[in-house]
Structure formats: C-alpha cells, structure tokens
C-alpha cells in the first residue's frame, strides 16, 4: 500500500456566477506521497487556486473525494474543516499574511492557541522560529523584518503544529531572487530534515524544477506530470 498523504479523486468544483456556471475543476485526480515535494503549475484561470483552496481545506469540492492523511475531508462542516486545517495543513502565502501588530513569536503562537495548546506554547513557537533561523528576532514585529524574514516567520507558523502537509502559494512571489532562493532552500531543507510534505503552487519554472515532481494543470484537469 502506498503511503499517500493526499489522495484526490475526481474532484470537481462549480461556481455559480449569477446564471452562468463556471467549472473550475473538472474531475481532477492526483496523489502526493508522504515526504514528497511537488510543484503545481498552470496558467491563470487553470483552476490552480481552486485546487489549492480544496487541498488546504479552505473550500469543499462540489463532488469527488479528497482524502487528507487518511481522512475524507470532502464532506466536513466549516468548523470540522477549521480543526483539520489547524492540525494537518500549514499555509505559506505569497503576501506572508502576518498579523501586523503582533510580534514574530505571537504570530507563530497563533495556530497553537486555536489548537488549545496553553502549556509550553511559547517553547514550541520559539523552537519553530529557531528552526527557520529567526531565534534572535522573537520580539520583532513584521514591519521591523525584511521580506525574507517575514516569510520565514510565516514558515515557522506553518510548521509549528507539525502539519501533514505544507501548502505554499507562490512563496517567493513577493521576494527578490536572492531571498526567494533562501526561502526555497529553507523549505527544501525542512523537507529533508523533517520529512514534511511540501506542495508548492507557482508559475516560476526555476522554483518548480527544484521539486521532485511537477503537476501541470489546465482547464481544471491534470494535463501532464513530469519528474524533475
């Protein structure tokens, strides 16, 4: 039996825009093995964002099954999805999405607070920040950090709950090429050292080639897969 952390079968997603139905996903199937690094590529309008939202449990598919870490999450309620997101998914966004008024430490503590971890919460958060090389910047606020450092805080936040997968949506999109390179190095080293499954959505071929496998999407379907 294969150790698949993501199993998507025949996913469809239909948006109703007034009278018009938009088919964002049309029977998409894919699998990601535990510890794998994959890149999802596709032009805008390909259904990339929709797939990302469903893989991240932010949205439900209209039909089809999505099994994340052995649990079918395609029919869960909003609050059940929130718990799944908290436990099993770590997000890294293009625009970092840190709370501007909170310190780096408080930002990283946030998922633990929603998980109900009160004990040792600080220690976990400090460990995560040290793992991304920001052990010296615990009490800085986002506006006191560089773009690369902010993205590191976001990665520490994604990491802190030991999720089954980390979803990175254009993680280097808002960074200069040097910091972007460093962030990719960091993500890949986390994958090597911790075995964290990494799903990166990008349209930068340089980023995609660093993944073990690239999935190309067009018009809501997987058009090709290639080993990098």
């Amino acid at each position, binding site marked *: 039996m294969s150790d698949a952390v993501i199993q998507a079968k025949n996913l469809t997603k239909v948006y109703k825009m007034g009278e018009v139905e938009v088919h964002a996903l049309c029977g998409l199937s894919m699998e990601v093995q535990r510890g794998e690094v994959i890149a999802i590529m596709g032009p805008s309008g390909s259904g990339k964002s929709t797939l990302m*939202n469903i893989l*991240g449990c*932010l*949205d439900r598919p209209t039909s089809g099954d999505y099994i994340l870490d052995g649990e079918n999450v395609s029919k869960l309620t*909003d*609050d059940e999805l*929130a*718990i799944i*997101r*908290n*436990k099993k998914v770590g*997000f890294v*966004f293009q625009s970092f*999405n840190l*709370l501007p*008024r909170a310190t780096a430490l408080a930002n990283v503590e*946030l*998922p633990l*607070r*929603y*998980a*109900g971890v*009160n004990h040792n919460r600080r220690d976990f958060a400090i460990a995560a920040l040290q793992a991304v090389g920001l052990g010296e910047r615990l009490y800085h606020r986002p506006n006191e950090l560089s773009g690369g450092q902010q993205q590191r805080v976001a990665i520490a*936040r994604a990491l802190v*709950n030991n999720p089954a997968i980390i979803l990175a949506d254009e993680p280097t999109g808002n960074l200069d090429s040097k910091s972007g390179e460093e962030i990719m190095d960091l993500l890949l080293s986390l994958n090597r050292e911790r075995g964290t499954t990494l799903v990166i959505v990008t349209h930068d071929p340089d980023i995609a080639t660093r993944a073990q496998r690239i999935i190309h999407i067009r018009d809501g379907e997987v058009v090709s897969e290639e080993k990098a």
Partner: protein
Amino acid sequence: MNIIASFFEALESLTSNKLRSGLTILGIVIGVAAVIAMISIGRGAENSITGSIQGIGTNLLFVFRGGSADVRNPQPITLGDVNAISDPFQAPSVAHVAAILQGQAKVTYAGESQVTTVEGITPEYAIVRNYHTTEGEFISEEHMLGRSSVALLGPDIADKLFGRKSGIVGETVRIEGQPFRVIGILESKGGSSFSNQDDRILIPLTTAQARLFHRSNRDQVDLLMVEAISPDAVPSASDQVAQILRYRHKTKIGEDDFTILTQQDFLDTARTITNILTIFLGGIAAISLLVGGIGIMNIMLVSVTERTREIGLRKALGARKIDIMVQFLTESAALSLVGGIIGILLGWGISFVVGRIAAANNANISPSIGIDTILLATLFSTAVGLFFGLYPANRAASLEPVEALRYE
C-alpha cells in the same frame, strides 16, 4: 484560548486605533454617566423628601374631615371628637391629640405687612410636633380657656416682621387687624422643600375659632394630629380613632365622613412619586446608552470589514466560528466595559456636583450611589456591548475563508 488572554488581545487591538476607540467609548460613557447621575439624584431627592416627612414626627396619624365622595351630610370634626379620642379608655393606643384650625391671614407690625399661615392649635401640639421655643413660652391651657390674644412666631416670619429672631416677646402684632401679644418664638424646624415650617404663626385654637377663622360649626377643627403610643401602635390607634368617629358621627358602615392618613401613607405616596421620577429620568438616560450601543455596533462593523483579511488568515490557521465570534464580542464588550467604568466615575462626579449646587441653594439633595446602581450600570453597559457586538461578530465569523483571504 482563555478569557483573560483574549481580553488583553482585544485591548491591544482597540488601542491600535485610539481615537476611534475613544470616540466609540464616549457614547457609552455619556450613557452610563447619565444613568448613574439621574438615578442617584432621584434617590437623593427621594431621601430628602421622605426625610422631611419623617421629620414631622414619628407615630403620627392625620385625621381630616371628609371621606368617600358620596357620603350624605358629612359632619365636621369637633373639639368633642378631640376630647373623646383623648380619653385613654376609649382609645388606649392614642398618646396625644392636637387639634388644628388653619388659614392664611395678613399679619402687620409697624407698617410691615405679611400674609402667612396662621394655625390655631391646642397645647398638645407642642408634644405631638416636638416643638420648642427659643424664647418665651408655649401656648397653655389657660390661653385656651381664656381665648387669649397671644401668638407664637416662627423664626422666619419673625425675621420678616421685626428684622430679628429674638427679643420679640412682649411685642404686639396685628393679625387681620386684631392685636396679638407675642409670647414666644419657635425654634427652627429647617426649611423643608415643599412647605416652610418656620414661616407660620401659632395661636390658641379657641381664639382662632372665636376671632379669626369662622367655620359653619363653632366647635369645628380642620385637622387632628394624633400621636400613637408607639410606632407599632399606629394601626390600632388608627382603628380606635375611626371607631370613635364613626360612633360619634353615626355614619353608616363604609361611609366614613373623615379620612385618616398615617405617616406611612405620606411616605408611600412620596416614594411612589419620586420612584416614577427616577424611572423617568433613568429611562431618558438609558436612551443615550442605547445610542452609545449603536455607535459600538457601527464601529465594529467597520472594523470587521477592515480586518476581513485578518479574519481569513485566522480561519486558515484553524480558528473556528466560535473563536472569531469570541474575539469580536470580547472587543465590543471591552469597549463598553471601559466606557461603563469611566461613565460610573463621571456620573458619580456629576451627581456630587449637583449635590453641591443643591446644597448651596438650600435644597439639601444629597445624591446617593448604591452598589446596586453601579452593578446595574456595569452589567447594562456590558450587555449593550455584547448585544450590539453580536451582529458584527456573527458577520465576521460567517465569512468564507477563501473569500476573506482574497479580500483586498
């Protein structure tokens, strides 16, 4: 997440926009301060009024002529009734009875002229009302029997006529043109808010009946003040007086031609009036608190829209509906709680100042703020915050994470 942590987080988020939070709080501050000030001033007025009623004397009953409206041929209260009620065998619960005949009269002295209340009284009046003279003597039984033209002056009327409050005994004043010798000056009973007890003249009842106030029946009196032997004996004294009067007036059952009021009746009436006043004032103040609550709702709605992205992020990180709900409710409750606390202090200040102004004008309203008022205001303002925070918080909690994250 525990309550204290989320409270501090709410405070932090509120202090990040100080001017806006301050203005929002102001609405609640004004509302709570108005409620506190109005209720405490109302209570102060009530205390002052009931205090002056109690100051009339304890254990007192008042007996007036006239009862239910449809009694035929009602009889006046006479000195004969007074003597019967004074009889300890007929009315064992009664200690003293004072009879009063009163009216307005023109009083002159050396060209100075005043219209004031003149009361014809019996000597028991001194006991029943606990009156003392600052100089001279009280009206005695001899004055009664002799229908003497003597008068006791209250300190205020003495001051108006003579320009002084002592050294007046032996002078002669004219009441409705008739000479009366001043035999004493009454001690001050203090200016009560609704009738000045110091601006009056007392003369013997018999003199008043014979010379000043002519009633259809020569023996008639206007009012009896009956003192019961103890506060507990007031109801039985009332029953005994009623029994005697019914017997003497030969009234049918249920057709009394007199009315007995106890001090408690006056107190109850006064309390009812001041309570209505307090509720009325408090109600108006509560409307301003309501307006403050709407201000909170408005600001929280703006805040939810502004922080849509933050809400989306929190949801992505695993916040459930209830978590977002609690976050925003805590913020609106914190707003109104802080506003409530400042409002209580401000309301206390306002009522203190009003009390001072009243005292400077001899009105003697000392506002009282009870712990119940403070609790009520705090609970009410927090409830306002929670109630008006509910809709914005629910709106925040119901945002779709995907759309909230995409929101610019």
